């Protein structure tokens, strides 16, 4: 047996073995969808489309599921996930929106305006920001930014005005979005910088020869040509932000509350909790079938969104291939 392994492989055998190993990834993805969907099914079955709506306090609903124990009744499965979905949309949307403007400017700076010395510093800086683990971002958020917001930005009057509904303690939308933006910009910057470098030199030189300044040449030629990459970067950053669980569970206030934009300035201080953080926090009580179904249904929604994002990024990258640019 061992002798057979030691003798040189034939090409066919090697091709088949390697091909089988490669297809393992596809099998895993299929397994991922199947396993998560099977465990999530009871939750969708009991709630129907009401699953996506708001049905009162979601923390109370999950608490009841935990207390339901091993033999939950049909009523225990009841859940309306809208506050969590809204929390996810808010944090992701705001962070990607702010991060996009910021990273386009930063990418233009890296490619066009930064002097050589500064460029040698800023590239490792971007990589460093991408490498810092989310738990460290969370730690800085909860020990530095949250106390700062609590002490200096949220006034006592504001706290009292909402004290019967929620407790403002500094954790919430503002800090979540700020840190999430810092976490996802490196990804966008990397992709946009790649694309800006890949724009043929002649295009921009043509613009400069016609007499526009460097910023105009960048903005009207390079950035325009790199638009697909910018969209692809934003979509990938979106996928990253959707799945961010640990940092957000530390700084978001971890309360199943849907911040209301109609509240004015108070809105940005309101606590929330996105889907991914809910999964982390309820992973302890997965033994109760009702909680299990709920948590896996959140995971299924995240999985579905992530797949959609991957597909959108692929779509967005297609025009770039025309120019032979690989991003």
């Amino acid at each position, binding site marked *: 047996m061992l002798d057979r392994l030691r003798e040189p492989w034939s090409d066919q055998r090697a091709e088949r073995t390697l091909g089988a190993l490669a297809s393992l990834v596809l099998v895993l993805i299929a397994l991922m969808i199947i396993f998560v969907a099977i465990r999530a099914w009871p939750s969708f079955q009991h709630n129907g489309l009401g699953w996506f709506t708001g049905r009162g306090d979601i923390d109370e609903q999950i608490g009841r599921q935990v207390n339901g124990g091993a033999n939950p009744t049909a009523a225990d499965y009841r859940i309306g996930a809208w506050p969590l979905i809204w929390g996810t949309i808010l944090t992701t949307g705001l962070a990607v929106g702010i991060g996009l403007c910021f990273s386009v*400017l930063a990418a233009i700076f890296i490619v066009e305006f930064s002097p050589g010395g500064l460029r040698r510093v800023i590239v490792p800086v971007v990589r460093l920001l991408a490498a810092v683990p989310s738990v460290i971002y969370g730690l800085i958020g909860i020990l530095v930014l949250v106390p700062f917001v609590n002490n200096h930005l949220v006034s006592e009057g504001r706290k009292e005005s909402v004290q019967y509904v929620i407790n403002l303690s500094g954790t919430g939308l503002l800090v979540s979005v700020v840190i999430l933006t810092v976490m996802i910009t490196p990804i966008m910057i990397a992709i946009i910088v790649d694309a800006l470098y890949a724009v043929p030199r002649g295009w921009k030189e043509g613009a400069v020869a016609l007499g526009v300044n460097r910023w105009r040449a960048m903005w009207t030629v390079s950035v325009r040509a790199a638009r697909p990459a910018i969209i692809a970067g934003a979509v990938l950053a979106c996928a990253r932000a959707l799945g961010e669980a640990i940092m957000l569970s*530390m700084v978001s206030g971890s309360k199943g509350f849907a911040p209301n934009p109609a509240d004015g300035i108070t809105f940005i201080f309101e606590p929330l909790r996105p889907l991914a953080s809910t999964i982390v926090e309820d992973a302890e009580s*997965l033994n109760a079938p009702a909680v299990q179904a709920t948590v896996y249904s959140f995971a299924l929604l995240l999985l579905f969104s992530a797949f959609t994002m991957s597909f959108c990024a692929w779509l967005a990258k297609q025009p770039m291939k025309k120019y032979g640019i690989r991003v």
Partner: protein
Amino acid sequence: MAVTPSAEPLRPLRPPRKRRVNESLRTWRWTDRIAFVLCWASGLSLCLIAAAIVVYMAVKGLQFLSFDVIFSRPLPSADQQGSGGFWDAIVGTVLLTIIGIAIATPIAVATAIWVVEYGRPSWLARAVESGIEIVAGTPDIVIAIFGLALFQQGIFAPLSFTAQGGAVFGRSFLTAGAMMSLIALPMVFGATREGLQSVPAHVREASYGLGKTKIATIRRVLLPSVKPNISTGAALGMGRIAGDTAIVVVLLGATLRIDPEGSVPGVGLLRGTGGTLTSYVYNNSPAGEGNAPQKAYAAAFVLLLVVIALNFAVDAIAKRGAKTGLESTRLGA
């Protein structure tokens, strides 16, 4: 007219020196000037944020770091004096990283070789490439919760602890390491594929010309030449594994101490639960149960050093190749 050979040998032409265009901002329109200033501001603020994070973590970390805290085992205690250090967390991080990368590297390298060198049928090769992109885009928390569902099946019982009633616990170093390999897989795959694609075709043809089979060429010619790429990918993947928290919390149990399962020394450790530096920081932050910010700072500083070292080890491994230094494979996009 015959061309007379010049007395001096032709010197290679030097490329023209790049000269900076001295463009005065004063000729710019004010909207352009604002944009210019905004570009500088965003670039500089990136540097400032990074510097602030590193300096703050270093100051706080060094303040609370001591020999004792690193090398003593954690103890469950409400009192900060008695709760020990985070030696177990360091061991957990090292162990988990090794398991994860040991699973990820062979699979990723084999996949990359198959996609680049064989890639038939082509629809399957395309599907595999997209599949890896999908895995890269899947949130780690979803991977973790999928791992829990997978490894709680009876067939995987030997990998973890089995309760009295026959329920499989599904949480252990082995199961967590297996799922961690999915986090590292796209990075190793991307780096290896990049390396293989940059090997010129004539290298392969020379090998075939000498009568080598394809697989022999791969083993003796291609693999040695992409070794730096594989190491790059592996180092980046290890950085990602060491920095991941969600999988540790869900699949490793995130316990304070390493809890071997069963009496066999090595196997018991792998089947048991434990914690890593990330879960230690998470649990000791004000959001967790421990609430010992000093120890969280110290552990976070060690973690930051490990992750930075792994990410910048890459530069030492692969000096050439990187054009901008910001290739998206390096950031795990």
